[in-house]
């Protein structure tokens, strides 16, 4: 896939040099944050840091012909030491006024703000609520079909996306050091439907894929337990499902929006995550104060204990402990309450500040208070 991405990038470059109509846009989020003493959250600690959420990006797009556009976006993220990456590179074909088809590496339309998640200027938060938005599978290599139309006062649209997801997740190894583990999802299919009536918007999304994710640290454990139980726990070509619902009321002077998502792999050690946020704000002149409550519940029932119960008695206790421990290690349950303020300095610059209280329901010592400030710029 890397090769084909390079080809698309080269294709873009060739097209751009041959065509006068090249658009260069960019955005920057300069985000700083500091936690209350001795706390850590989202990579921040009690020393002011600017590298955890800052992002700089440049996008180049050009028209290949009347109906085709090539787009490439290069992103440098603070959390990756500002190493530049081709976040997206794709070609869009406008089949009709209502239908467009994009192919290449593109953003998976999981959430309301998926497409512009990196563009801080596009929303009122310092960053999109992590309980919902912090998933490891944001980009897709494949294609996406967009259909948009309207009937009377209602606007509606559908998106179908399909392809492969290649991503990495940091998992601590036996000594506690984070190790990048590949996450691969084949045959990913996602369908989104959206309807808007002036101030009201509703969005539903559902998808599934076949996931493989095998941290080495777990394989050590799996080698010591019966094969049928190891297979049940292991994520290898297992079906994952994703569902989401989004609702938004925007009366200009005030707005309320909420998203609810559920993601899980039934036949695995990984618990099903249920997450939501509710956010409300008012717009008074250049200021947008807001409050956001988010919650993630990834504390499930311990699975496969029936398989453990079928083992000969002497094995039940040690295998049971391994099965339970493996699953519990991936449990997560927390809520975050955030008070935020956005100030529109100009039509391309916004200043923001927020304060978040992070409550961990499984580990009280992980509770934290975080203060962040941000400058969002687009050009």
């Amino acid at each position, binding site marked *: 896939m890397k090769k084909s991405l390079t080809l698309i990038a080269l294709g873009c470059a060739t097209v751009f040099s041959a065509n006068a109509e090249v*658009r260069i*846009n960019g*955005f920057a989020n300069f985000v700083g944050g500091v936690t209350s003493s001795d706390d850590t959250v989202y990579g921040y600690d009690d020393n002011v840091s600017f590298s955890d959420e800052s992002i700089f*990006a440049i*996008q180049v*797009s050009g028209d290949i012909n009347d109906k085709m*556009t090539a*787009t490439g*976006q290069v992103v440098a993220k603070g959390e990756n030491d500002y190493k530049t990456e081709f976040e*997206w590179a*794709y070609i*869009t074909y406008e089949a009709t*006024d209502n239908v*467009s088809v*994009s192919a290449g590496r593109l*953003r998976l339309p999981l959430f309301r*703000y998926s*497409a*512009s998640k*990196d*563009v801080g*200027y*596009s*929303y009122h938060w310092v960053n999109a609520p992590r309980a919902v938005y912090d998933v490891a599978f944001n980009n897709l290599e494949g294609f996406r079909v*967009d259909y*948009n139309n*309207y009937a009377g006062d209602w*606007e509606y649209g559908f998106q179908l996306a399909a392809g492969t997801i290649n991503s990495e997740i940091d998992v601590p190894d036996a000594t506690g050091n984070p190790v990048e583990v590949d996450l691969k999802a084949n045959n990913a299919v996602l369908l989104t439907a959206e309807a808007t009536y002036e101030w009201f918007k509703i969005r539903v999304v559902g998808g599934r894929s076949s996931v493989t994710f095998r941290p080495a640290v777990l394989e050590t454990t799996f080698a010591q337990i019966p094969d049928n139980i190891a297979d049940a726990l292991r994520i290898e070509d297992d079906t994952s499902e994703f569902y989401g619902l989004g609702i938004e009321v925007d009366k*200009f002077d005030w707005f309320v929006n909420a998203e609810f998502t559920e993601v899980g792999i039934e036949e695995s050690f990984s618990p099903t995550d249920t997450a939501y946020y509710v956010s409300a704000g008012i*717009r008074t002149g*250049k200021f947008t104060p807001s409050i956001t409550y988010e919650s993630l519940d990834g504390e499930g029932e311990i699975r496969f204990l029936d398989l453990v119960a079928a083992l000969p008695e002497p094995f039940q206790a040690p295998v049971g402990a391994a099965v339970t421990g493996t699953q519990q290690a991936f449990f997560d349950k927390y809520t975050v309450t955030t008070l935020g303020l956005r100030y*529109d300095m*100009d*039509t*391309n610059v*916004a200043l923001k500040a927020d304060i978040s209280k992070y409550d961990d329901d499984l580990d009280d010592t992980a509770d934290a208070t975080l203060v962040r400030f941000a400058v969002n710029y*687009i050009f």
Partner: protein
Amino acid sequence: MLRTDPYAGAIFYLVMRGHMLQKLMRKTIIAAITAFFASNTFADVVVIVHPSNNSTLDDRAVKRIFLGKEKKFSNGTGVTPINQADNDARDTFDSNVLGRSSSQVAAYWSKLIFTGKGVPPKEVGGDAEVVAAVAADPSAIGYIDSSAVTGDVKSIPLN
């Protein structure tokens, strides 16, 4: 046009006391009244198209065109919206026709630009440039202060 700056006002309040205060307050009130009437006259923005354009347009169609949701006129010809660069006509158009502040319109477009889903309308500087661009292009649509309308373009009042 007079503009009042509330922050400058606050600082002045602290710096100048006594008899100066009354004078200042009177000035501020006059400035506020001037700004009020001035902003009302700005509301007189009209949409203009090429004289040969026979399509029907209403507020909603214009809104959809300037938000990139509609790419054709009602008569089926392609449409090229022409925006104004940051000025009073733009502010009035954004808040009255698009129903958003200029910052929100910018945020709306940032969502589309960075997902390859749309390209914002071209911007030109001032009413005269909009008139020139619309007069030269049968597919163009723009908006200007009603006082700037000439015989080269067809104006469409918006309710």
